């Protein structure tokens, strides 16, 4: 004869796990993850080509030179392809307009797959060519007009959405920045403006340097920005350093993903428990159950049954992660491997499972108590608000703690049992000292035990109550009762 607690747990587990929605929910997480990573790329593919025109107030053909400069990335890549002019082109070189034009058009006509292959090193150039398209004033039959007239006509075109934007180039760029403008009806998409800005800056800087008669090498030296290279101890104990790789940075941020999943898991499981308790109470099946087993057996049976459900969920996600680590490099050979190693890191996986269990148990005890005093889901959701607010805190502090894993806030939060699972998971990249794991772990286990005791007292009385939910003072009275 199985113990009644086990029977209750088993029923809860089977009821949840055998539904399709449960598995769809589990599958949804990796799918959403993949989608959110892939979505940016996919959306970028749907980005429409932005058309722009240029009104040039300077009489030195600046527009043409800026255009060439802006397309230089494309041209260099193209040049690399032909192997002919790549090395000879520098930022200041002028390319005969005809050649530039031909190259540019040829480039645009290439099939995307080929372009990608050619541009492995410099995808930026490829994207620029695709994303922005210059409409010449001659094409618009505005080339015979005065610049002021041109600007007025272009403004109308922009207003009518026939043109995404147009630029005006100041009359005297060597002396000042007057008259430079960007006119568009779209105020949010700044990519075109920034791209053109930087090309114009490079061209005009060169012109100003030449105008000031500064030697080219001197100018280059002056223009050279200072960059502090990120380095770290190389771990050999010799005091030497090595470069910080993307993998190293990812390693420090990896806990964020785990905290987020942990949060979803705890929240989903605890919510499941709450709904379930309220359902049993509102359809009065609870009375039949209580005629067969004690409130304590029922409560812990439910909590453990849903814990098993939650562990199934967490276990499936870990399974997906490991599968991803194994499959992803086969599909995409160039994938950054350090990231994959992190996902597969047993330290993360084991602490993830353990923190899920204890975090869930703590919140489960709170929610089962709330569920037991409510007669409807609506009441329960109202009473649940404070718990949700508590749960949001570790989410808000997630990025902050990853950046300061051993800071004061992180340390203080680690010792608050309600936040311990999330915060300690969050700090894993730190990592915290062993003694911190031990002390916060003990605190967490003790809190779970106390929460179970308290929840038991509330559950026993609350679950048979009908009518209005009890007042807080009343509940405190139950807690004091033996």
């Amino acid at each position: 004869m199985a113990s009644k607690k086990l029977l209750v747990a088993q029923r809860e587990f089977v009821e949840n796990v055998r539904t399709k929605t449960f598995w769809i929910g589990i599958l949804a997480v990796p799918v959403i993850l993949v989608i959110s990573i892939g979505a940016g790329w996919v959306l970028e593919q749907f980005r429409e080509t932005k058309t722009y025109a240029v009104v040039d107030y300077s009489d030195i053909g600046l527009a043409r030179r800026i255009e060439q400069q802006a397309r230089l990335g494309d041209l260099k890549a193209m040049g690399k392809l032909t192997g002919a002019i790549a090395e000879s082109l520098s930022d200041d070189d002028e390319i005969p307009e005809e050649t530039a034009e031909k190259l540019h058009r040829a480039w645009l006509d290439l099939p995307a797959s080929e372009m990608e292959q050619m541009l492995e090193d410099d995808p930026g150039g490829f994207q620029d060519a695709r994303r922005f398209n210059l409409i010449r004033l001659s094409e618009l039959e505005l080339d015979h007009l005065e610049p002021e007239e041109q600007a007025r006509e272009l403004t109308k075109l922009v207003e009518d959405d026939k043109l995404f934007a147009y630029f005006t180039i100041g009359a005297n760029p060597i002396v000042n920045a007057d008259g430079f403008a960007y006119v568009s009806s779209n105020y949010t998409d700044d990519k075109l403006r920034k791209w053109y800005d930087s090309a114009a800056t490079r061209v005009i800087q060169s012109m100003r340097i030449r105008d000031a008669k500064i030697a080219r090498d001197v100018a280059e030296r002056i223009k050279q920005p200072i960059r502090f290279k990120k380095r770290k101890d190389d771990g050999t104990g010799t005091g030497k350093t090595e470069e910080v790789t993307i993998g190293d940075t990812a390693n420090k941020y990896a806990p964020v993903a785990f905290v987020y999943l942990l949060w979803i898991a705890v929240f989903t499981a605890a919510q499941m428990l709450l709904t379930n308790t309220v359902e049993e109470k509102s359809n009065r099946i609870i009375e039949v159950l209580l005629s067969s087993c004690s409130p304590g057996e029922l409560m812990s049976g439910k909590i453990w049954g849903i814990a098993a459900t939650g562990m199934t969920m967490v276990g499936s996600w870990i399974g997906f992660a490991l599968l991803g680590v194994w499959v992803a490099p086969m599909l995409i050979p160039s994938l950054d491997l350090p990231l994959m190693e992190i996902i597969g890191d047993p330290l993360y996986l084991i602490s993830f499972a353990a923190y899920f269990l204890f975090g869930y148990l703590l919140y489960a005890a709170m929610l089962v108590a709330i569920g037991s005093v409510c007669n409807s889901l609506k009441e329960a959701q109202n009473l649940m608000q404070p718990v949700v607010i508590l749960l949001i805190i570790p989410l808000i502090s997630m990025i902050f703690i990853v950046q300061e894993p051993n800071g004061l806030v992180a340390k203080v939060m680690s010792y608050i049992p309600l936040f311990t699972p999330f915060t300690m998971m969050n700090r894993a990249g730190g990592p915290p000292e062993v003694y911190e794991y031990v002390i916060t772990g003990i605190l967490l286990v003790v809190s779970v035990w106390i929460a179970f005791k308290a929840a038991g007292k509330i559950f026993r009385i609350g679950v048979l109550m009908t009518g209005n939910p009890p007042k807080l003072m009343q509940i405190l009275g139950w807690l004091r009762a033996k």
Partner: protein
Amino acid sequence: MTDALVLQGVTKRFGTFTAVDDLSLRVPTGCIYGFLGQNGAGKTTTIRMVMSIFHQDSGTISVLGHNNAVEVKDRLGYLPEEKGLYKKMKTAEIVAYFGKLKGMDTSTANEKAKTLLTQYGLGDWLDKKCEAMSKGMGQKVQILGTIIHEPDLVILDEPFSGLDPVNRDVMRDTILQMKREGRTVIFSTHVMEQAEQLCDAAMMIHKGKLAFDGTISEIKAGHDFGIRIAFDGDGEALKQLPGLSRINNQGRSAEIFLKDGTSPQAALRWLMDHVELRSFDYGEPSLHEVFVNTVETHNAAHATVEAN
């Protein structure tokens, strides 16, 4: 023969409200016993204490010879007033689950659940979810869940409420069957006709206190005999009956009580002249009359106490 259930001086309070007040009673083994009383009288609270869902504040409860009801929990069957099922569970599973919770082993419970459901005409529903069933079917499933483990004492809280006549008969037959098998059945109701038809003995609880208990004939003893008639015609006219003390007029039937010294014969003659009589029966009062009478007497006594 020992008693299946003995309550002695049982009191239960909720805050300042006394739900059950110094209740003592005996339910003999193997009988059908009625718990009567108005809504809110304390029937359900008493039942919950017997089932050790609640614990009494004072007094003792002995169930099946044990002072601690928890010890014999598995030998009790309980159908609460408000009946619920897990909507997503299949009928056979839920009946078996209730059996397992009462200590049956898995395979026996599964087999028994199927047998019972088939026996009760739900053989086609074994693999269907509870949410797909009608209310009557759901109630059948619940009663099967209550009796699957062959309990020695079955407590049914308002088992007939919400049942159509056909299912009411099924419920009645089930109760009688349990009695034949030697089990003790306690059921609560506020429909006196059901109690009168089924119960060997009963008790009535009023505002938490025991109003009366005993076998049905013991309960009726000491109460005035009454005339039960079925008639066609104007029921209002009956109020003019000479020597009338009290009347429960149900439209086409009525229960009439006469003042002391009034002859039933005289009443019969008068009735024949004034309404179209279909039947006439002079005898002990119905349980309904005893119930109403008791409530009125208690309320009157209560009012007097208040007034003083």
